[in-house]
């Protein structure tokens, strides 16, 4: 396996190495803003990217922030996260924009409009900025 250059680049070999040659996360549930939380500390011999993820997610950190900090494309980071999730080393807090009875019944909303109570919380937060 050839050594990869450090830092941000689009070297395909680096991407290939990081993911062990896999190309797609089999767990496709991660949103860009899914918040990741570590459930354990890195262990000796762990792949360095995965160890870095466990360190940076001691407090909740969005998928897109993890990608930015690792300087890897989002799709690659999702593959790494998928492995960590499968082995219980992280948990994922997915975005919730729909609440209320329809969401609880699992109905698909007529359009993508978020729940008014969530929007009200957002407005309060923005006005307090």
């Amino acid at each position: 396996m050839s050594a990869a250059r450090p830092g941000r680049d689009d070297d395909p070999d680096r991407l290939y190495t990081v993911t062990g040659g896999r190309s797609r996360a089999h767990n496709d549930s991660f949103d860009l803003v899914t918040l990741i939380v570590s459930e354990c500390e890195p262990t000796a011999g762990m792949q360095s990217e995965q160890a870095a993820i466990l360190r940076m997610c001691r407090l909740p950190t969005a998928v897109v922030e993890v990608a930015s900090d690792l300087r890897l494309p989002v799709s690659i980071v999702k593959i790494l996260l998928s492995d960590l999730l499968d082995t219980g080393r992280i948990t994922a807090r997915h975005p919730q924009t729909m609440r209320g009875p329809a969401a609880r019944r699992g109905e698909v909303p007529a359009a993508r409009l978020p729940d008014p109570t969530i929007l009200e919380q957002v407005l309060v937060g923005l006005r307090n900025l």
Partner: protein
Amino acid sequence: MDSVISESAVSGPAERKPLSSSAENGLKIVVVGGFGVGKTTLVRSVSDIRPLNTEETMTQAGQGIDDLSSVRQKTSTTVAFDFGRISLNEQTVLYLFGAPGQQRFWFLWDRLFQGTLGAVVLVDTRRLDESWYAIDRLEHHGTPFIVARNDFGADSYSADQIREALDLDPDVPIVACDARSRESSKQVLIALVEHLHHLSTARERTP
């Protein structure tokens, strides 16, 4: 497994204020517009953190990178985008994404728009045509949006003229903005969320 990045390459988070341990819901708003229209400026004005940058890699077919062989053959496209973050309360965090408006980046937007609350189309009235494509995509995708006219000084168009030039529905709000001002950028976001709230409660009233 081989280590492919050095520790120093992942030093980013230390410099940034972390989220509270109770943060559980990440929400998204997308700011879209042509090059140089002020997207990054707006995100920076309201963000709690210095804007970050990341990238998404897509094959030319726009399928995501589900075929690494195409990445290896360098037939993939990489597009970078900026984002910032606002903690709204102990549980809720709003992420703001600045997305380039050019047609060739449509695949990125379709990803960003997925699950987004809504979008701000940032326009420069001297180059309104640069936002046509973005507005088409938003309408097609069913993502609610408002138009924010970033004031670069030479702005003599009325809201009606802008509405006509952009062929906007009458209920799409048009607001003025100075992306360099935190207060003005904040008002743009409030205008978007009020619009979303209006749409969302109108829906509930008409079963």
